[in-house]
C-alpha cells in the first residue's frame, strides 16, 4: 500500500497547462527525487500535493495520501493534514519565516495546531526541536527573530518545523539551492539523518542530479510538466533513456561530480 499515489495529475493556470498527466507512487519511508529544470512543473506538483496552489489553478487527476483522496478536499480538511501527515520545506529560507514571530513560536506551531500543546509545553518542545537540528544554543535561538539567523540556520528551523509532528511524508523543495555551498552538505546530511531516524517518506525536489544521487535511490524526471523518465537513480545516471536526462547528467558532471559508481 503506497503512502502517496499521484495519478494522472494535471495543473492548469490561466489556461496554460503547467503539469500534465503526472503519476507518481511513494511507499511509506521511501525516498523519491523529482528532477527537472526550473519551470518544469516540479514545485507545482509538490504544491498540488500540499493543497497550496493558487486559487486560479485548476487541478485534475488524483492525489491519494494513505488512501485518502486529497483533490476536492476543502481548505479546512487539508489544513488538518498539512503539518501533521505531510509537511514541506521550502527553497527560500530568507523569506519562508514570519519576520514578526520569534523562532520558538514558529517552531512549535505545528504542535500547537495539531497536538493542542499549551504555551509552556510548546516552548519546551521548541527548544528540543532546535537542538535536534543542531542549532547552536537552542535556548537562545528560540528567543531570536528570523532576521537574526543566517540562511543555513533558518533552513534548519524550516526542517525542524516540518518534522515537528513526525509527519509520514516530507516534501523538500530545493532545500539547499539558496544556501552557501559550504553549508549545503551539512544540510543534506541532516535531512538524510532525520528522515532515516523518523522513517519519514521523502519527496525531494531538485534540479541537481549530483545532490539527488546521494539521497534518493529512485528518481523521476520532469520536463515541461510531463514525466519523461522514472526509475532507479543509478540506472538513470548510467544509461539515461531520454536526451533531457542525459543533459541533466552532463550538467551535473560539468560541475565536477563523480559518477555514482564511484560515489557509492
Amino acid at each position: 500500500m503506497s503512502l502517496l499515489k499521484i495519478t494522472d495529475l494535471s495543473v492548469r493556470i490561466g489556461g496554460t497547462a503547467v503539469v500534465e498527466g503526472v503519476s507518481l507512487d511513494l511507499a511509506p519511508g521511501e525516498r523519491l527525487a523529482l528532477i527537472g529544470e526550473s519551470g518544469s512543473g516540479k514545485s507545482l506538483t509538490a504544491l498540488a500535493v500540499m493543497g497550496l496552489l493558487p486559487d486560479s489553478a485548476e487541478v485534475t487527476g488524483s492525489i491519494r495520501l494513505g488512501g485518502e483522496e486529497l483533490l476536492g478536499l476543502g481548505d479546512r480538511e487539508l489544513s488538518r493534514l498539512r503539518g501533521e501527515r505531510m509537511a514541506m520545506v521550502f527553497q527560500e529560507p530568507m523569506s519562508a519565516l514570519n519576520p514578526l514571530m520569534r523562532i520558538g513560536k514558529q517552531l512549535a506551531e505545528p504542535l500547537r495546531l495539531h497536538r493542542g500543546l499549551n504555551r509552556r509545553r510548546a516552548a519546551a518542545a521548541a527548544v528540543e526541536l532546535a537542538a535536534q537540528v543542531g542549532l547552536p544554543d537552542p535556548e537562545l535561538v528560540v528567543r531570536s527573530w528570523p532576521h537574526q539567523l543566517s540562511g543555513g540556520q533558518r533552513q534548519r528551523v524550516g526542517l525542524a518545523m516540518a518534522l515537528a509532528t513526525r509527519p509520514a511524508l516530507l516534501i523538500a523543495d530545493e532545500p539547499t539551492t539558496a544556501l552557501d555551498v559550504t553549508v549545503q552538505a551539512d544540510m543534506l546530511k541532516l535531512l538524510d539523518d532525520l528522515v532515516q531516524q523518523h522513517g519519514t517518506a521523502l519527496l525531494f525536489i531538485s534540479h541537481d542530479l549530483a545532490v539527488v544521487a546521494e539521497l534518493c535511490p529512485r528518481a523521476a524526471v520532469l520536463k515541461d510538466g510531463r514525466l519523461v523518465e522514472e526509475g532507479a537513480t543509478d540506472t538513470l545516471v548510467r544509461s539515461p533513456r531520454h536526451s533531457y536526462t542525459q543533459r541533466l547528467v552532463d550538467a551535473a558532471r560539468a560541475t565536477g561530480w563523480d559518477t555514482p559508481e564511484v560515489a557509492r
Partner: protein
Amino acid sequence: MTLYVLRRAGLLVVSLFAASVLIFLVLRLLPGDVAQTIGGIKATPTQVAAVRHDLGLDRPLTAQYGSWIGGVVTGDFGRSVLDGTSVSGQLAEKFAVTGPLAVGAVLLALGFAVPLGVLAAVRRDSRLGGAVNALGQLGIALPTLWVGLLLVVVFAVQVRWLPAQGFPVDGWDEPGRALRSLVLPWLTLALSEGAVLLRFVRSAVLDVLHQDWLRTARAKGHTRTSALLRHGLRNAAVPVVSVLGLQIAALVAGAVVVEQVFVLPGVGQMLITDVGNRDLDKVQGEILLLTGAVLVIGFVVDLVHRLIDPKLRSAV
C-alpha cells in the same frame, strides 16, 4: 531601543522648535500689522506706534520670540489682543469637544476600514472585493464637508434622528445630548479618514498575501483564514502604522472642517474665529498647538512602528 527613543525624542524637540520658529516668522515678518488691525483703519501713525509699543512689537524679533516661547513652555499659548481671552483658558473646554471627536472618528475609521480593507484584498478577484475597492476610491474623492452636509440631509432633515448641528451648552454634563450631537460629526470624519485607510490596509494585506512565510504557515496546518489572522495581519500592520503617522495632519484638517459644518465649539472653530478676527497672538498659539499635536502623535506612531517591527527594534 532606548537609544532610538532618545534620538527620536531629540528629533521631536528640534522639529517642534523649527515649527515654532516658522510659525513665528511667517506671522511676524509678513507685512500684515496687528497694531493697524487693533487701532482700526482710521488710526493715526502715532496711535499705531503706541499700540505696537503696548504689544511689545517694537522689541527685537529674538526678544519677542523668546517671551512667546517662554510663555508656551509654561503653558501660556497666547492671549487675545482684542478681548483678552487666552488660548490656555479656553483650551480645556474646546478640547473636550475636539478630543472626543478626533479619537472617536479614528476608532470608527479603523473599525470599518480594517475589516473592509482586508476583505477587499482577500477577495480582490471577486465582485465584492472590487465593489469595496471602488467604494474606497469614491470615498477618497468625497469632500469631508459635503459628506457632512449629505449626512445632515439624510439623518437630520429627512428622518430627524439626530441634531443637524450644535453641541449642548452644558457640554458633557449632558452626556446623552453630547453624544447624540457627535454622532454625525464622527461618521463624517470617519468616512473620509477611513476611505484613505481602507486603501492602505488593502495594499498592505495584498502584499502580505504574496509572502512566502504565509505559505509556510499554511504548510504547517493553518487554513487560509487562520494564517492571515495569526501571521498576516501583524505584518500588514507595519506599513499601515507608518502611514498612519502621515494621516494625522489630514485628521487635524478634517476635524477643523467638521467642527465648522456641525457648528461644534472645538479647537478648530476657535481657530477659525480667531483667524476671522485676525487675532494673531491667539492664532499663533493655536497653530503651534495643532502642529505640535501632529508632531507628537507622529513621534508616538514612530515608536509603535519600532515596537511591532523587531528588525527595526534591534537596529539602532
